[in-house]
C-alpha cells in the first residue's frame, strides 16, 4: 500500500495538473487531467490520474476508503477540487448482518466492488490520501499468497444485498487513461427501475462496460433486463409484461438506440432492417429480435473496444467469465425465446444448429454456465441502458472512442457480413482476417492433442490455441477482428432467423459461431496469460470441477480467529427439542413471551409514529432523537423491533435507503461508558477501550464521510446510562445533531419524566421533545393480545381470558404478566384433567387458581404454617405493640410478653436463646423486620404484615 499521510500528522497540498478542459458549460465546471499531491515541506509529489485506485480519508485511519478514480473536476476558480469515483468496500463496511452472506472468511486485503447507489460517488479531491494497487482475482482462483501488503484484492461485488461474482470487465481500467472529453448531450432519464415489473431471480449484476460510472447504475438496470431475458421466463410472458408496462425498458432502449446508433454506419444499416416495425404498443417478433441483436451488437462493440483498450493494461479477467461466453451460450440458453418467437422450435434447432458438444453442454446444467448466463444477460441490458443515462461518460456509440478506428472497423465488418449472409464459410473466412477458423474438426483434432480434463476446458483451450497464432500479430488487431467476427456471426444469425431458413442453421455455421466466441474469450485469456500463468495452471489442473463448483476450489485456510473475538455458544443439544404435543402445549408455546408474534396488536398508533419518525430521518439522511417511556411490559422494545423489521424490509425492497440498526441496553453493560465500546463494536467490529471508543465515535459522527448510511441506535434502559457528569447521555443525544452524523437515536426508559428528573439541562435539551409514552394495556388490548397470539388455537374459554386481562389491566397492564398467567392456567388445566388426553378448555376455575397463585400474598399461609412458638411470638409482638402504643418494640420487651403468653397457653416457657431463634426465623421469612442480630436482646422488632392479617391468620389456625 502506498504510504499515505493522515491529516493529523502532515498537511497535504493538492494541485491540479495538466490542462483544464471545460466539462460542463452551464455549471462552469472544468475537468482536469491529474492531481498532484505533495506533503508540506517535502519534495516528493504524488500524481493521481483517473483510472488509478485511490485511498480516501475515512473514519478509520488504518483502513481508509478505497475507490477507483474516474475523473477530476472543479470549478472556475480551481479551488474546489472534486472527483468522481467508483467505490470499493472493505468487509468491515458491509453491514454486520450481511457479512454472513459472504459464506467464507474474508481475505484481510479483500475489497468488494460496490454496486449500490446509496453512496455519493462525488468526493472532495482533497480527501484523497494516495494511490493503491488493486488486483482483480477471478472468482474461482484463490487469493495470492499474502506477501505484498500493498495490494488489495477484489473478487466479488456488493450491491447492498448480496455478494456477486465480479465481472472482470468491470475491473478493466478506464480506457486511454480517461482523456478529457467534451461535454456530452444529456439524455432524458430512463424509466425508473421500480416502475418496471421486476423479476428478482438470481440475477447477478455485473456489467461488461468499461465505464464504471455506468456500472453503478447496474443495480437499477439489471432489474429491467431481468424481465427481458430471464432465462426461465418464457418469451410470451416476457413479451406480455413488456407490452403491459408502459415504460417497458426494452422499447425505450431500442428507441434510444435507434437514435443513438445513427452515428455508426453499421448499426444504422442494420437498423434499417427493422425500421418497418413500428414502435407501437405491440412488438413484432422482428422487433424483439432486432432489439436483442442491437444489444448484442453493442455489447460486442463495447467488448471489442474494451479489448482494444485493455491490451495495454495488465488487468486480470476471470477466464470463465469473459464476455463472449454468454453469446456462445445464447444458442441454447438465453436466446431460446427469440427463436421461439420466430416459430422455430428449439428441438428442431438444437440438433442442427448447435454443435453436439455445445448442445450437451447446454443440457447439462453447470453452475459455471448459469452464473455466466446470469451475469451476461443483465450486463447486456445495462449497455443499452447507458444510452439513457445522463452520465458524463458515455462509452457507447456516441462516445468519441466509438468513432475510433476499431469501432469503425467493426461496423465495417458488420456491414460486409450483411452482404455476405448466404455463404457462411465465406463469412467466417472473411470475419477472420487472420485466418482462424476453428471449425469443428479442428477443434476435435486439437483436443486430442491437448490433455485436458473437461470438455469445456478442451474447447476453451482449443480456441486458445487457434488464437495463439493470430495473437502474434498486434493484439489490438486481433481483438478488432474478433469483435467484428462476432458481430458478423450475430448478424448472420439474425438474418437466418428472419429468413427462417433451415439451411442457414447448418453445422458449419453454428460451429464456426460458437468457437468464435470461445476464441474471443480466449483472446482475453491470452492477454492475461502472460501475467497470470499461475492462475491459469491451477485452472487447467482443476479443470471442470473447479470451474463448476467454486466452493470446492482450494481456498485459503480459514484464519483462526483470535481468542478475544471468539464467539462462544452454548453447546448444542444431543436430542432435538420436542415439539408441542397437544393443544395446550401449543397454546403454551404461543403464549410464551419469547415467541415472536406475527404482528403487534394494540400498538398501531405508536408503531406508526415511530415508523414515520425513523423513516423520515432515514429518507432525509438526517438525525434525531426520540424518547419512549412506559411501564415494563407495555411493548416498547417489541414495537421498535417491529418498526425496524418493517424498515429493513422496506430498504430491502429499495423503498428507502439502507440503514444500520444497532441496539444497546443499559442493563446489559456493566458501566455506562461501556455503551461506547458496544456501539463501536457493533458498528465497526473493533474492540477498544471506552475512552478510545468515545473518541472514535466522536470522530465518526462529526466528520463528513462520503459513504455513510443512516445509523439507527436503540438505547434500552436509558436511565442506567446515567453518570455524574452525564457525558454518555450527552454524547448520545449530541451526535444526532451533528450535520454529518446521520444518526437516529431511539431511547427507552420506564419513567415518563426521566429527562426532567435526572438529566441536566443541556442533556435534556438535546434529547428534544420528541417523546412518546406507552400507556399500560387496557383489558381489551390485553385480551386482543392473547387472542392474536393464540391465533385460532382454541384453548381458552372466552370468560377466562376476560378475567385474566381484566385482572392484569387493573393491577399493572403488563402484557408479560398476562401471558404468564395464561400459561400457568394451561398447566393447571392440564394437571387437573383426569386423563391427560382429555384436557378440555382452560376454564374460569383454572384461571382463578393461577391468579391466586401469582397475586395472593403468601404471608397468611406462612403464618398458618408456622410453628406454635412462632405464632405465639407474633401474638406477643402484637400484644407488646398494643401495650406500648407503638409499632416497634425491642426483643426483650416482646420476650416478656411471650413468656407470659406461654404461661397462659400452658406451655413450658422457652429460654432466651430459643426465643431469639424463633425471632430470627420469623425475621428470615420477613414476617418480622429485625435489626442486626448483634444487638441481641436489644434489637428492635417490627411487623412486616399488618396486625389484622396476623390476627386473622392466627384466628384461622385456632379455629
Amino acid at each position, binding site marked *: 500500500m502506498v504510504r499515505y499521510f493522515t491529516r493529523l500528522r502532515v498537511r497535504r497540498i493538492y494541485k491540479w495538473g495538466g490542462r483544464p478542459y471545460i466539462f460542463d458549460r452551464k455549471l462552469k465546471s472544468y475537468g482536469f487531467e491529474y492531481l498532484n499531491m505533495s506533503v508540506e515541506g517535502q519534495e516528493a509529489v504524488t500524481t493521481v490520474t483517473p483510472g488509478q485506485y485511490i485511498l480516501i480519508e475515512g473514519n478509520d485511519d488504518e483502513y481508509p476508503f478505497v475507490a477507483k478514480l474516474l475523473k477530476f473536476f472543479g470549478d472556475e476558480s480551481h479551488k474546489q477540487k472534486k472527483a468522481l469515483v467508483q467505490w470499493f468496500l472493505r468487509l468491515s463496511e458491509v453491514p454486520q448482518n450481511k457479512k454472513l452472506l459472504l459464506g467464507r472468511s474474508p481475505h484481510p486485503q479483500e475489497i468488494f466492488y460496490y454496486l449500490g447507489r446509496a453512496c455519493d460517488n462525488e468526493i472532495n479531491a482533497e480527501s484523497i490520501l494516495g494511490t493503491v494497487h488493486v488486483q482483480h482475482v477471478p472468482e474461482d482462483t484463490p487469493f495470492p499468497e499474502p506477501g505484498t501488503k500493498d495490494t488489495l484484492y477484489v473478487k466479488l461485488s456488493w450491491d447492498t444485498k448480496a455478494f456477486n461474482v465480479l465481472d472482470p470487465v468491470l475491473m478493466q481500467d478506464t480506457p486511454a487513461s480517461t482523456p478529457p472529453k467534451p461535454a456530452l448531450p444529456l439524455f432524458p432519464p430512463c424509466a425508473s427501475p421500480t416502475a418496471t415489473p421486476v423479476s428478482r431471480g438470481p440475477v447477478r449484476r455485473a456489467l461488461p462496460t468499461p465505464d464504471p460510472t455506468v456500472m453503478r447504475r447496474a443495480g437499477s438496470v439489471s432489474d429491467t433486463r431481468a424481465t427481458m431475458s430471464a432465462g426461465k421466463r418464457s418469451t410470451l410472458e416476457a413479451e406480455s409484461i413488456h407490452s403491459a408496462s408502459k415504460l417497458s425498458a426494452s422499447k425505450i432502449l431500442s428507441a434510444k438506440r435507434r437514435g443513438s446508433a445513427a452515428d455508426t454506419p453499421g448499426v444504422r444499416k442494420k437498423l434499417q432492417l427493422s425500421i418497418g416495425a413500428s414502435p407501437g404498443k405491440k412488438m413484432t417478433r422482428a422487433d424483439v429480435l432486432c432489439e436483442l441483436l442491437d444489444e448484442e451488437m453493442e455489447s460486442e462493440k463495447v467488448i471489442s473496444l474494451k479489448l482494444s483498450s485493455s491490451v495495454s493494461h495488465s488487468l486480470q479477467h476471470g477466464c470463465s467469465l469473459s464476455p463472449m461466453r454468454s453469446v456462445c451460450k445464447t444458442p441454447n440458453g438465453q436466446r431460446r425465446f427469440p427463436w421461439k418467437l420466430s416459430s422455430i422450435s428449439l428441438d428442431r434447432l438444437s440438433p442442427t444448429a448447435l454443435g453436439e458438444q455445445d448442445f450437451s453442454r447446454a443440457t447439462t446444467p453447470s453452475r459455471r454456465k448459469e452464473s455466466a448466463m446470469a451475469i451476461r444477460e443483465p450486463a447486456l441490458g445495462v449497455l443499452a441502458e447507458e444510452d439513457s443515462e445522463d452520465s458524463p461518460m458515455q462509452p457507447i456509440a456516441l462516445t468519441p472512442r466509438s468513432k475510433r478506428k476499431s469501432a469503425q472497423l467493426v461496423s465495417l465488418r458488420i456491414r460486409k457480413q450483411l452482404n455476405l449472409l448466404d455463404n457462411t464459410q465465406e463469412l467466417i473466412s472473411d470475419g477472420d482476417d487472420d485466418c482462424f477458423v476453428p471449425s469443428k474438426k479442428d477443434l476435435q483434432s486439437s483436443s486430442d492433442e491437448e490433455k485436458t480434463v473437461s470438455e469445456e476446458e478442451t474447447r476453451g483451450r482449443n480456441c486458445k490455441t487457434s488464437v495463439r497464432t493470430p495473437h502474434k500479430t498486434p493484439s489490438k488487431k486481433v481483438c478488432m477482428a474478433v469483435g467484428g467476427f462476432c458481430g458478423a456471426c450475430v448478424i448472420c444469425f439474425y438474418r437466418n432467423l428472419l429468413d427462417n431458413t433451415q439451411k442457414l442453421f447448418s453445422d458449419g455455421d453454428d460451429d464456426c459461431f460458437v468457437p468464435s466466441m470461445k476464441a474471443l474469450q480466449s483472446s482475453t485469456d491470452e492477454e492475461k496469460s502472460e501475467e497470470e500463468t499461475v492462475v491459469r495452471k491451477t485452472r487447467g489442473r482443476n479443470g471442470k470441477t473447479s470451474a463448476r463448483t467454486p466452493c470446492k476450489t482450494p481456498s485459503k485456510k480459514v484464519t483462526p480467529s483470535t481468542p478475544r473475538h471468539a464467539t462462544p455458544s452454548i453447546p448444542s443439544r444431543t436430542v432435538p427439542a420436542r415439539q408441542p404435543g397437544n393443544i395446550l402445549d401449543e397454546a403454551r408455546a404461543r403464549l*410464551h413471551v419469547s415467541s415472536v408474534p406475527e404482528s403487534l396488536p394494540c400498538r398501531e398508533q405508536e408503531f406508526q409514529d415511530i415508523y414515520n419518525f425513523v423513516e423520515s430521518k432515514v429518507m432525509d439522511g438526517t438525525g434525531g432523537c426520540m424518547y419512549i417511556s412506559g411501564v415494563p411490559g407495555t411493548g416498547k422494545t417489541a414495537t421498535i423491533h417491529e418498526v425496524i423489521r418493517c424498515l429493513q424490509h422496506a430498504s430491502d425492497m429499495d423503498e428507502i435507503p439502507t440503514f444500520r440498526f444497532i441496539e444497546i441496553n443499559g442493563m446489559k453493560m456493566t458501566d455506562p461508558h461501556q455503551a461506547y465500546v458496544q456501539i463501536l463494536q457493533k458498528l465497526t467490529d473493533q474492540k477498544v477501550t471506552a475512552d478510545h471508543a468515545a473518541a472514535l465515535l466522536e470522530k465518526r459522527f462529526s466528520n463528513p464521510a462520503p459513504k455513510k448510511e443512516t445509523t439507527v441506535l436503540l438505547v434500552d434502559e436509558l436511565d442506567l446510562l446515567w453518570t455524574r457528569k452525564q457525558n454518555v447521555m450527552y454524547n448520545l443525544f449530541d451526535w444526532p445533531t451533528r450535520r454529518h452524523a446521520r444518526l437516529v437515536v431511539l431511547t427507552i426508559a420506564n419513567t415518563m419524566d426521566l429527562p426532567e428528573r435526572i438529566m441536566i439541562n443541556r442533556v435534556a435539551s438535546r434529547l428534544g421533545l420528541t417523546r412518546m409514552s406507552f400507556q399500560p394495556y387496557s383489558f381489551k388490548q390485553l385480551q386482543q393480545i392473547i387472542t392474536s397470539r393464540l391465533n385460532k388455537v382454541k384453548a381458552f374459554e372466552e370468560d377466562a381470558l376476560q378475567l385474566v386481562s381484566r385482572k392484569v389491566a387493573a393491577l399493572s397492564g403488563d402484557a408479560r404478566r398476562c401471558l404468564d398467567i395464561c400459561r400457568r392456567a394451561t398447566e393447571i388445566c392440564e394437571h387437573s384433567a383426569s386423563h391427560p388426553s382429555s384436557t378440555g378448555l382452560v376454564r374460569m376455575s383454572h384461571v382463578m387458581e393461577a391468579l391466586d397463585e401469582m397475586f395472593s400474598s403468601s404471608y397468611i399461609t*406462612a403464618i398458618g404454617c408456622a410453628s406454635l412458638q412462632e405464632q405465639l411470638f407474633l401474638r406477643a409482638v402484637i400484644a407488646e405493640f398494643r401495650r406500648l402504643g407503638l409499632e416497634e418494640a425491642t426483643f426483650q420487651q416482646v420476650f416478656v410478653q411471650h413468656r407470659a403468653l406461654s404461661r397462659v397457653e400452658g406451655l413450658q416457657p422457652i429460654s432466651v436463646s430459643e426465643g431469639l431463634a424463633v425471632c430470627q426465623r420469623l425475621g428470615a421469612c*420477613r414476617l418480622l423486620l429485625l435489626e442486626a442480630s448483634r444487638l441481641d436482646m436489644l434489637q428492635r422488632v417490627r411487623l412486616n404484615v399488618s396486625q389484622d392479617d396476623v390476627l386473622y391468620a392466627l384466628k384461622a389456625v385456632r379455629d
Partner: protein
Amino acid sequence: MSKRKVKETHMPVGECISQVQMILRERFCHQRLPEKPVGMESQHKHLLELLRRTAVHGESNSVLIVGPRGSGKTMLLNCVLRELLEVKDVNKNVLPVHLNGLLQTDDRIALKEITRQLNLENVVGDKVFGSFAENLAFLLEALKKGDRSSSRPVLFILDEFDLFAHHKNQTLLYNLLDVSQSAQAPVAVIGLTCRLDVLELLEKRVKSRFSHRQIHLLSSLSFIQYLDNVRSQLSLPQDFPDTKFYDEWNDSIKTLCEDQSVVDVLQRHYNSSKDFRSLHLLLMLALSRVSASKPAIKPTDLLEASRVCMVDSKANILHGLSILELCLIIAMKHLNDIYEGEPFNFQMVHNEFKKFLQRKSHSIHNFDKPVVMKAFEHLQQLELIKSMDSSTAKIQKEYQLMKLLLDHSQIMEALQKYPQCPTDVKQWAMSAFG
C-alpha cells in the same frame, strides 16, 4: 454360603453399632436425599413438570422456590434434578449451573462462575478473561447465539436468590430473566429463597421479566406426621446386614417413640420449630450416646439431648464468671430496675457495688477500683453488656454508657446454679431494691 450368612447376621454388637451410627449419621448430617420428598407432592410435581419442559421442549422458564429455612427447598430441587437426570432424553442435554448468593457476592464473581460451569472458558483457550464488561458481553453473546430447538437448556440455580437482588443494578438477574423471556438459548432460572417478600426486592423491569411463578414450601406438618418422621428417620433400612440387630433396633425405636417423656420432648421441639434440621441435630445428639454397652436409644438419651439443645447460651457463660463479675451484673440488674432500662456507666455500677459492700456484704472483700474496672471490661468482652455509644474513643471508660444484655430470669437462674454462691450475694440479687 449359608455359614457365611449366619456369620454375617451375627456381627458383634460393636460392629453393628458402628454400622448404625454410620447410616444414621449420613442421614442426619449429609442431608441425604429421601426417596420421595414428604409432604410436598404437588410442589414436586409442579417443579418437575416445569424443568422437564425446559429440558425436553426447550421452553424457557423462571421460578422461585420460597419457604422458611429448613423447609426442604434444596432437598426438593435436588430430588427433582435427580429425577430429571434419570430421564434418558434429558440426561445429556441439560447444563445445570449452581450459584449461591453467599458465595457469588457480586455479579463479576457470578459471571466467572457461570462461565466456568458452562465450560465456556474452553472456547477462549487458556486465556483468562479480562474485564467484567467483557465477561458479561461474552456470556450474553453465548446465550444469544443459542436458540430454542438446537441449544442445550441451561438450568441456573440461584441459591439465596434474595442476595442476588442486592447486586448492583441487578444486572445478572435482569439478563438471566431477559434471556428466559426472549427467543435465545433455553434457560430455566430457579431461585431458592426463604424471604416471602423477595419479589419486592426486584426492580420493576426485572420483576416484569420474571414469570411470577412461586413455589411455596410451607409445611403444614402435624405432630403425628412429625412423630412418624422421627421414627422413620431413626429406623434402620431393610438391607441392614444383621437381621437380628435390625429387629432389635427397630423395636427399641418403636418403644422409644411411644414413651411419654420422649413424646413430650418431641412435642416441645415441634412447637418450637417444624424444621427438620433442628430435629436432626437432636437425634444426632441422642445417637452419639449409643455405644456397644448400650446398644439402643433410651428416653433419657433423648431428654439429655433435648436439654443440651434447649439450654440457654448465656447461662453457660454466667456459670463461668467470678463472684466480682457476678456482683457487678447484679448491680446492673438493680440499676435496670431503678432506671427502667436506661443505660448505665461504670461509675454507677461501681457505686452500686460499693453500697452493697458497705451495707450487707460479709463475705466479699473490698476490691480496688482498677480491679473492678477490669472485671467490667471482661463483661463487655463477653458481650454481656454492650456499649451504647458508637464513639467510644472520646468518652472516658468510666462514663461510657452501657446496657445489660441479660434478662432477669437468666440472672436468677445463673445464681441458682452458681456453685457455692455466697448467700448475701443471692439475697442482694433477690431483694427488690439494692
